[in-house]
């Protein structure tokens, strides 16, 4: 049922893009109708280079995201639980966070050229903050009664992190992971696009430079579909991990 509705939404988007040129809103030359994008996509799918690029992008995405999530969660829990650390690090975090990964591109190229590490640097830098901030908010949300219960039963720091803090922060962490997953994909592709590291991004760059508009949109659509697939996976994990949580066990009607 849910899947059907979701497909319905995506189908709506396809129809919209198909009819946009006929509505005269944009010329078909610059935003081609769905069927032309689809045939360009078919061409891409038949090309082994496309699959290699997709693989390269996914590898960069997965490694980068994994590093960012682990680092973000660990840093968030340490900063959130060690007294005083939050006050000490707050200004630095706020300073570093708004620095765009794209501004770091020369630095990345300088250090790693078009190697995978170059993309990873940008991916990790951008998505790390998403996770960290969510974890910090989650840690702050621990129910004091629950925490006091744990403390009064003599649960040590580690046990309290594992049994109280972590489950409380988990909904926030999941949101952070979903945010970071998309940001990581965005940055992986941006890095490839600008630096030229192999992947979907550099294919998009080639299509842009060649004025191959349907091809470009086909690749953009692949990116979007990747995002949908990633979110689907994240949602599934979330439903399982958070089956006890208000947001899963009971839905509030607005």
């Amino acid at each position, binding site marked *: 049922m*849910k899947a059907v*509705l*979701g*497909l319905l939404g*995506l189908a709506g988007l396809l129809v919209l893009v198909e009819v946009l040129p006929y509505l005269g809103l*944009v010329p078909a030359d*610059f*935003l081609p109708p769905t069927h032309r994008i689809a045939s360009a996509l078919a061409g891409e799918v038949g090309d082994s280079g496309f699959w290699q690029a997709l693989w390269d992008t996914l590898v960069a995405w997965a490694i980068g995201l994994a590093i960012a999530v682990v680092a973000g969660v660990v840093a968030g829990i340490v900063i959130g639980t060690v007294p005083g650390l939050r*006050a*000490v*690090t*707050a*200004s*630095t975090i*706020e*300073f*570093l*966070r*708004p*620095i*765009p990964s*794209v*501004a770091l591109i*020369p630095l990345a190229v*300088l250090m790693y050229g078009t190697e995978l590490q170059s993309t990873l640097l940008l991916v990790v830098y*951008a998505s790390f*903050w*998403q996770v960290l*901030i*969510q974890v910090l*908010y989650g840690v*702050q*949300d621990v129910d*004091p*009664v629950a925490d006091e219960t744990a403390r009064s039963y003599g649960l040590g720091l580690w046990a309290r992190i594992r049994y109280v803090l972590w489950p409380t922060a988990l*909904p*926030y962490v999941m*949101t952070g992971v979903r*945010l970071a997953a*998309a940001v990581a*994909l*965005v940055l992986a*592709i*941006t890095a490839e*696009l600008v630096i030229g590291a192999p992947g979907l991004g550099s294919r998009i760059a080639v299509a842009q430079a060649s004025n191959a508009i349907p091809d*470009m949109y086909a690749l*953009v659509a692949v*990116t*979007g579909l*990747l*995002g*949908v697939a*990633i*979110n*689907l996976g994240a949602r599934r994990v979330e439903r399982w991990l958070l089956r006890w949580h*208000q947001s899963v066990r009971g*839905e*509030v*009607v*607005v």
Partner: protein
Amino acid sequence: MRIAIRVVLAVALPAVLFSVWWFATANSTNFYMPPLREILRIFPDVWTGDRLRTDVLPSLLRLAGGYTLAVVTGIALGVLVGGNRAVRAVLEPVLEFFRAIPPPVLVPVIMLFAGIGDTMKVVVIAAGCVWPILLNTVEGVRAVDSVLADTCRSYRITGLARLRHLVLRGASPQIAAGMRQALSIGIILMVISEMFAASNGLGFAIVQFQRGFAIPDMWSGILLLGLIGLVLSLLFRLVESRALAWYHGLRRAQRGS
């Protein structure tokens, strides 16, 4: 005294990091890693006077516009999507589709509809920073306490009153988390949007420095971005601590201070 301690705490780590940077690059001959000394020396020349008016101010105005747009749409859409299962099922894949598209790729598409002027830049900023607000609002709305929801239903508190007194307030801690995330993403997108079809702005200036091999100037721009982020986050915290006084009070009180 309290304030003094807080200032010291806030300044300590940056001071350490800056000293490390200072000494690590003191004798740097790497073209792309100039000495911090050099960067700080030119900073006032680069970022005072004319540039403040011609580059920094327009950027901040675009940021304000885009951020506001994102907050309004993010919360509105989030309440709609979070509060209604069917709507969520239909819209989520579409939203996720757009969320995964990198802004540099999206900008040309936005240009088709919004032109190449400030509107485009505001839209690009909004399109980027709407996501954390949207996602957090959705999760916050979904997690509204069931007993409170029942209380509202039984007292027939519905419609706008319910939205205002239950849904938005209940989700507000998480919405605030999203808005805070969005703030720095907004700054990032301000830079990205000004890499396209711009003729002024902070992002534009940084890109020009980069292309013109004015590397110390570029670094000074990055420093300025960080400073702007810091100041904006302080302002945000000030506003948040007022709006969420009940929440922080609740936590503090229950912690027993």
